[in-house]
């Protein structure tokens, strides 16, 4: 009986392989890629629980349990990086999240198709610049000899330390983030506005509704699911932060504010070679990140919105 089933199974496998050999063959390379470059690093996370020795590898290094975490949780620099990450992300949430919603609504109110098209092309442009380019432009414009200060001094306003004074730096970091992402961020909201039933606007026109009322009572509720979905995603990313932007914009004068988890991991890991500590910080970040994402999703469902899963 068993043998019979197994034999039958073998025949089935053979048949499937024969029929779909080409499909499996196609998948070979992508799957190999995923295992080597995605799953192997996940396995590499184990070194967070080791006193990792680069010559011994994960197989030969000594296991130390949670000692590494214990160590980093007693480091002031870790808390500084964590706090800065949260602060910068909160600033992005406060300024960078509503900005594209507002801009999208305004773009939607524009009546000149041509003007709209041209401005949109311009507004999307910053999204395609690397942070190195943006950082370079910011440095050239806002450093002490740059255009911003020379214009200010023409109006009799003195030099402002845009980039080396800590609070100013926070404002610059946030503003540049808005500048870079606001136009591109409108795309998804504009698409969602187009999906709103036109009859609603016509009906409100008959009732003599003002523009603002239409925005408030029709447009905003219409794009609310999109807003909520993007809000969940952004809250879920609260503890994760890209590397390029804080690294390129930061400098040692403001490192009390600009040193975030990604740059901290880079510094202690690749800079100082404390691989176990850096990996532990990274693992902490991804675990907390998943908790944030799940919590945001749960919260959204609680208040009757559609979650992301």
């Amino acid at each position: 009986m068993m043998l019979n089933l197994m034999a039958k199974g073998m025949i089935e496998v053979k048949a499937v392989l024969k029929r779909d050999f080409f499909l499996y063959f196609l998948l070979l390379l992508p799957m190999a890629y995923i295992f080597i470059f995605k799953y192997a690093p996940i396995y590499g996370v184990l070194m967070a629980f080791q006193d990792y020795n680069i010559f011994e590898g994960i197989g030969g290094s000594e296991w130390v349990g949670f000692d590494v975490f214990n160590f980093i949780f007693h480091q002031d620099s870790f808390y500084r990086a964590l706090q800065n990450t949260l602060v910068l992300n909160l600033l992005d949430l406060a300024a960078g999240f509503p900005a594209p919603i507002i801009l999208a609504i305004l773009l939607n109110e524009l009546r000149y198709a041509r003007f709209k098209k041209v401005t949109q092309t311009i507004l999307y442009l910053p999204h395609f610049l690397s942070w190195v380019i943006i950082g370079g432009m910011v440095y050239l414009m806002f450093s002490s000899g740059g255009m911003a200060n020379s214009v200010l001094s023409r109006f009799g306003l003195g030099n402002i330390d845009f980039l080396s004074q800590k609070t100013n730096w926070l404002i610059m970091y946030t503003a540049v983030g808005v500048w870079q992402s606001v136009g591109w961020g409108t795309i998804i909201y504009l698409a969602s506005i187009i999906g709103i039933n036109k009859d609603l606007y016509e009906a409100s026109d008959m009732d003599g509704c003002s523009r603002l009322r239409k925005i408030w009572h029709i447009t905003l509720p219409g794009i609310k699911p999109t807003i909520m979905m993007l809000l969940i995603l952004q809250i879920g990313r609260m503890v994760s932060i890209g590397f390029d932007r804080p690294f390129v914009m930061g400098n040692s004068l403001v490192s009390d504010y600009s040193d975030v988890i990604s740059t901290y991991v880079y510094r202690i890991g690749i800079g100082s070679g404390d691989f176990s500590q850096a990996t532990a910080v990274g693992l902490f970040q991804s675990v907390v990140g998943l908790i944030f994402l799940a919590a945001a999703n749960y919260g959204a469902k609680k208040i009757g919105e559609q979650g992301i899963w």
Partner: protein
Amino acid sequence: MSGRKLNWTDLIIIIFISAVAISCLVPFLYMIALSLSSNNAITSQKVSLWPVGFTIETYKTILSDVEMIYTLGYTIVLTAIYTIFCMFLTVCAAYPLTKKRLKGRNFLLTVLVITMYFSGGLIPSYLLVKNLDMMNTVWSLILPGAMSVFNVIILKTFFGSLPESLEESASIDGCNDLGILVRIVLPLSLPSIATLSLFYAVDRWNGFQDALFYITNKNLYPMQLKLYQIITANQQLDTQQGEGSVGAYIVPESLKAASVMFTTVPILVVYPKLQKYFVEGVLTGAIKG
């Protein structure tokens, strides 16, 4: 809505949006002005949006700088190879996964999607590249980021939206899976493939972090890393978080501005024509994700 007269709210909206759009252009105008100004005018802060002491000396310097031209050419070739390779992997992954008859399809999809939520992080990836002996090789800039699962899912969605009857009739005509893919599916998906290729190309062109981590050999610097070095060259060493800056030689602001323009121009040239594809790509991605 159309046909109504222009009123003051329209005017406010137009002014506001124009202001935002202008703010997107000002940095470029300033970069152009800086790069065409004499160093005297720049250090005495006379330059704003118009060149002062007009000179094209800076561009002469850059265009006669063999290293700079080499880096540009190298980065273009790197971007092209990366894009083709990524697209190849993406198609190879996406096409079989559209076939509902494929045994193990759900399992393979799960294996892919998991990597969107869990990753090993910076250091394990870095050590992997190191252990594979890819430090200071072009491979470190091509292989680790060679396939985005997100893009695979976008492409799979698109493949799946093609009418099944096309493939059925082709297979009745004796076309095998390879034939269906090459003769029917790919030609019909050219817009999606163009869009995803653009995403890959922009990623590689703008990529900085991996080059900073993996490349120390100047001959293998991509454009962004090179630009970073130029811009940070004479900010005092101590104001840099990274170890990248050289600090020893002085680079005038005009040269920095010209280098910024030099790196940006390829994007400025290509972007307006391809904008449509980018927008489509975002929307396909948004519907799925």
